[in-house]
């Protein structure tokens, strides 16, 4: 059984007890405990069920490599699934729940899968459940989905605080162990900014905890002085609890910071770091050995057993067997024996070792068996005993040793994920049995230079002496390469050169294990991949490691093969009879460890989710309970319902108000781009399809822009302010697009033209005053003379309404007498209020964008984005009149001569009247002829003016079909018949626009 020792634990505060719940059970831990250490302290060995077979699983490690103990932590809006128990700190009243079981962790019904595991081999779902066909959708898939998977997605809105932080630094050091600390010290005082990210809550990595007891004080002294240097250095910034999760091109790194923000909440920040040089000091991860039943609760990596003892005073078991292939793992035995813990036997796969640590262990009375390994593990939900067998045999059990815990070590694997993220290549080190970074094939920066350095265990250098020897040397070389003028960094190596702790690469034991045993030898714990699965993959032709990975799921998902990759590659090499370096390795992908989805969103959730642009009249619109419509990034008043009005009633009222009296529209969102310069007219002639240079001062002209392919791009009214200045209006959603378009043409194609443009969209707000009483309303302001003589149609004047400067355009998008008032935005609301107040006399009403659309559709005016979709030409819209025949050139001109764009079979804009005048065609519905779609509806409304349904549509060869009846098909297959007519339903003579 696991337990807490009466003392010890460098990470915990025994003075402060923390209460938490695990699967509804009240437990106690200490401040500083991780969920894993607290569970072990409470003898909770069974903490999870495996992904596929629902086998009982326990805590296997002490860090981010943990494949088993994934928990749902927190409650309600703070619940997060799939959190590694080894990384999460316990908090008062925290709720922790294990995952992937039903009805309970101890009695999991789905553990029946284990009994039928032979049917669930790798790729079983590709071969089974083929019939009956419908059963896949309705039975098999739902069943498999329910049975597999990890935690459940949270149901409540996530209330954690997430944010993004940008950080620029000269050097980013990843890892705060001996190599990282030494690198930071060596780089300081060279005029470089240095950021060091350490995933743990303290600096030091393994070197303090793994040092020999006699050296501890000396090491502590070194650590203390190092911390002082880091603290006092102006160059170095250290971030704890921050994991670099991905490195991308040109020194861009993402780091995940998780810190306590308040008593209940954590702050989770995504650091977006730009570094000129990145130094990887990410250490190494201990590798397990693969043996039968190696996944039972109570089996743990040897170094993790040590870590729990030293950091948390937690003991995995009081009868612990070590199985290993290296000398380094023996440190665990020393630590256990120092505390009087029984270690019945050490099983070493090697034939011998001459390391002094062996003698030390033997002197402690521990039995060491060389050439032996575990042939089986007895126990159901925990370890009860191990069966010993010969490494080279078939696994015949020679002796059964009772025990309640197993420590396992198959050596160490450099942590090279980040190196690989951005293109660094790996080299196979056959002697040590791992992949390490290839110094000849490094990631590169934006100038093609090497921008990453890897130091310490991540580079395959493990001894403290060797690290302290390597790091200053490499840093000095780096400084010299970067031509950083500063003296060489020299540090006295306080570590003594010890004999290297050796191991002989061994991965799967016993070597001659039978096929039956292979089915119980787990390689990837998180994805339930067994040795037999890899054998099956190879047998079925998935020999490439990338294929085998996908077929078996080895090394996939949140784990990214931290503890399984090397063992899996070895197994495949054995099966295929190829050396490991010819097998290669899978691609490590970011994130290095899972990050919450909320972190990717950062602060851009809830009210910051999307920037909503508001007009100066937005507050007034809000007060009037306007319904909103998103138009590009703007929010516009869609309609102004009153009392219990239905939407139809509101729209009818607003439309008729414009047709009979006068209406006000907040048109501030229209794009307004000033084009100024001696060549402005020439420039606009090239941009628009019609002539603009001939426009007289004080006049307006409607213009259409096309792209090079001849398709309509944007439209709007152009006003000539003076000889050199034009103000071009664009669609609401098109302002920024058109501005960039104009700037691009000016800078790339017509840079010889003396023209400047300024985007004035928000400088001016615009209010449309439309309706037969519009002139009367405006002339109520004594200063304004807007008679037809003073201000004819398509002209503008600048004047004052009371003391507010306005530019009044006599233009109309409704077909009625209409004025658009441009006003400096700071005075827009004031002007609006004046118009509303004075307009009462004329029954003025505000109208929203939907009424606007009905009004313009009644007149047959197009809207870019409704009647156009990026494939529509002016000719298609029946607007040949706006395409100049005189101009030598303009954007799109060449395309208009293409036969395809002049084909009579192209869709053409027509008006459509349903035979049943109350039947409004669904938007976008198709016109059907002989079972073939020949066009679609672009705008469709019930016209309050005409008291009937009207529509505009693009129909193949539409203009020649006028007078004919077509069938339209709604999405529910209902047929609606309608007549094709001219696309102008109201006042075709245009008499109303003069009032």
């Amino acid at each position, binding site marked *: 059984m696991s337990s807490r020792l009466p003392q010890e634990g460098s990470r915990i505060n025994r003075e402060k007890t923390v209460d938490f719940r695990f699967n509804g059970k009240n437990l106690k831990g200490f401040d500083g405990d991780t969920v894993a250490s607290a569970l072990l302290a409470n003898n909770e060995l069974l903490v999870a069920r495996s992904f596929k077979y629902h086998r009982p699983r326990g805590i296997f490690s002490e860090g981010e490599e943990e494949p088993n103990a994934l928990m749902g932590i927190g409650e309600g809006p703070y619940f997060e699934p799939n959190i590694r128990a080894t990384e999460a700190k316990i908090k008062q009243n925290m709720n922790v729940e294990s995952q992937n079981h039903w009805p309970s962790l101890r009695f999991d019904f789905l553990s029946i899968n284990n009994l039928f595991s032979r049917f669930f081999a790798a790729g079983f779902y590709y071969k089974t459940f083929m019939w009956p066909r419908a059963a896949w959708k309705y039975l098999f898939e739902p069943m498999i989905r329910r049975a597999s998977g990890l935690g459940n997605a949270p149901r409540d809105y996530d209330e954690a*605080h997430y944010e993004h932080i940008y950080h620029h630094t000269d050097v980013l050091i990843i890892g705060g162990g001996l190599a990282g600390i030494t690198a930071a010290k060596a780089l300081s005082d060279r005029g470089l900014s240095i950021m060091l990210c350490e995933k743990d809550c303290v600096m030091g990595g393994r070197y303090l905890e793994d040092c020999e007891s006699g050296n501890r004080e000396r090491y502590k002294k070194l650590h203390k002085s190092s911390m002082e240097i880091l603290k006092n250095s102006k160059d170095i910034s250290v971030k704890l609890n921050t994991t670099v999760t991905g490195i991308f091109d040109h020194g861009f790194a993402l780091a995940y910071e998780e810190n306590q923000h308040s008593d209940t909440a954590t702050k989770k920040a995504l650091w977006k770091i730009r570094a000129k040089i990145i130094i990887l000091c990410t250490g190494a991860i201990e590798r397990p050995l693969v043996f039968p039943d190696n996944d039972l609760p109570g089996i743990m990596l040897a170094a993790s057993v040590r870590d729990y003892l030293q950091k948390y005073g937690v003991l995995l078991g009081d009868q612990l067997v070590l199985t290993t292939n290296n000398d380094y793992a023996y440190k665990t035995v020393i630590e256990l024996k120092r505390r009087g813990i029984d270690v019945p036997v050490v099983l070493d796969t090697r034939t011998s070792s001459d390391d002094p640590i062996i003698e030390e262990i033997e002197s402690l009375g521990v039995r060491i068996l060389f050439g032996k390994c575990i042939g089986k593990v007895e126990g159901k939900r925990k370890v009860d005993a191990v069966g010993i067998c010969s490494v080279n045999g078939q696994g015949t059990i020679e002796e059964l040793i009772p025990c309640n815990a197993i420590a396992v070590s198959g050596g160490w694997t450099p942590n090279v994920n980040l190196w690989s993220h951005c293109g660094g290549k790996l080299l196979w080190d056959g002697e040590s049995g791992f992949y390490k970074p290839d110094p000849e094939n490094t990631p590169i920066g934006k100038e093609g230079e090497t921008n990453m350095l890897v130091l310490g265990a991540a580079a395959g250098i493990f001894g403290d002496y060797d690290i302290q020897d390597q790091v200053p040397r490499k840093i000095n070389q780096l400084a010299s390469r970067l031509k950083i003028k500063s003296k060489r960094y020299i540090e006295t190596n306080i570590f003594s050169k010890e004999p290297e702790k050796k191991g002989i690469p061994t991965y799967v034991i016993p070597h001659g294990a039978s096929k039956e045993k292979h089915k119980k030898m787990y390689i990837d714990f998180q994805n339930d991949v067994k040795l037999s699965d890899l054998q099956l993959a190879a047998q079925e032709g998935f020999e490439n490691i990338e294929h085998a990975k996908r077929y078996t799921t080895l090394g996939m998902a949140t784990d990214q093969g931290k503890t399984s990759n090397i063992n899996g590659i070895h197994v495949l090499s054995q099966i295929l009879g190829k050396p490991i370096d010819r097998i290669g390795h899978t691609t490590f992908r970011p994130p290095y460890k899972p990050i919450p989805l909320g972190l990717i969103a950062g602060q851009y959730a809830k009210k910051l989710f999307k920037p909503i642009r508001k007009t100066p009249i937005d507050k007034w619109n809000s007060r009037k309970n306007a319904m909103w419509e998103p138009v590009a990034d703007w929010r516009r008043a869609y309609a102004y319902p009153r009392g219990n009005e239905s939407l139809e009633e509101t729209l009818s009222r607003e439309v008729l108000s414009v047709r009979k009296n006068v209406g006000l529209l907040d048109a501030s969102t229209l794009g307004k781009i000033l084009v100024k310069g001696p060549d402005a007219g020439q420039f606009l002639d090239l941009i628009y399809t019609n002539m603009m240079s001939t426009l007289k001062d004080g006049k307006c002209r409607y213009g259409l822009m096309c792209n090079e392919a001849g398709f309509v791009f944007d439209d709007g009214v152009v006003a000539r302010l003076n000889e050199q200045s034009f103000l071009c209006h664009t669609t609401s959603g098109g302002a920024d697009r058109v501005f960039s378009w104009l700037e691009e043409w000016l800078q790339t194609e017509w840079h010889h033209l003396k023209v400047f443009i300024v985007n004035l969209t*928000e400088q001016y707000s615009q209010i449309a005053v439309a309706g037969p009483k519009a002139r009367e309303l405006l002339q109520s302001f004594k200063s304004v003379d807007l008679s037809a003589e003073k201000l004819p149609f398509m002209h503008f004047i600048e004047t004052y309404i009371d003391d507010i400067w306005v530019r009044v355009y006599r233009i109309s998008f409704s077909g009625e007498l209409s004025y658009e008032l441009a006003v400096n935005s700071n005075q827009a609301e004031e002007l609006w209020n004046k118009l509303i107040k004075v307009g009462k006399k004329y029954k003025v009403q505000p109208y929203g964008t939907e009424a606007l659309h009905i009004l313009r559709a009644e007149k047959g005016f197009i809207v870019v984005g409704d009647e156009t979709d990026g494939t529509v030409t002016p000719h298609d819209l029946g607007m040949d009149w706006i395409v100049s025949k005189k101009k030598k050139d303009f954007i799109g001109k060449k395309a208009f001569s293409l036969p395809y764009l002049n084909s009579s079979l192209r869709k053409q804009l027509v008006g459509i009247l349903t035979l049943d005048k109350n039947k409004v065609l669904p938007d976008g519905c198709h016109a059907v002829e002989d079972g073939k779609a020949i066009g679609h509806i672009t705008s469709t409304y019930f016209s309050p003016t005409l008291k009937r349904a009207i529509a505009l549509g693009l129909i193949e060869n539409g203009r020649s079909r006028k007078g004919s009846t077509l069938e339209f098909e709604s999405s529910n297959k209902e047929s609606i018949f309608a007549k094709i007519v001219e696309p102008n339903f109201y006042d075709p003579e245009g008499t109303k626009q003069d009032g």
Partner: protein
Amino acid sequence: MIQRVPNKMDKITDDTFVDVYLIGSIRSLNIRVDQRDKKSLNIIKKNIAIELPSVQKTSERKGLTLCWISNDEYLLLNEKKENDKLFNEFKKQMNLTTGVAENTTDLRVWFLVKGGRALDILRKGVPLDLSKSKISKGSFFRTRLGEIQINILIKSSNEILVSVLRSHRDYMVDWFEVCTMRGTEINFDL
């Protein structure tokens, strides 16, 4: 440099680790000028007697601040009422040339961010290098904050003027509220 005593009524953040004030509009002209156009350049030098600022910098004289936006675009800010005549005359003169001086006062709203961590706040949204060593008093940046366009004028490391399009005013107020919350300071452990 722009001087404006923040009105306490306009303080938009509460219980935060920096103070943010909504200033509203600052009289401004967008200037576009070809660097080869000596006539226009002379008008800038003569009328407002300000040297053209270098990249990402400002020049300042008697309450007028000229900010570099790009190689052919500047932003002239006028903080003093008594400069209005000069300001208007400059606009008029400039528009007689091939350059442009256009009133953009109403186009933007300005915020004042005050406090020792003023720069830190912007680091939560602005991708530029805003470390204290890289910027100085009088720096001016046109950049982005999240998805929106933003201008940053560094008055000092403790006082920063920020402008956004007026349509983004409410969004920016919300952004400041979220990002200046106590407990979310950008801190280093060593």
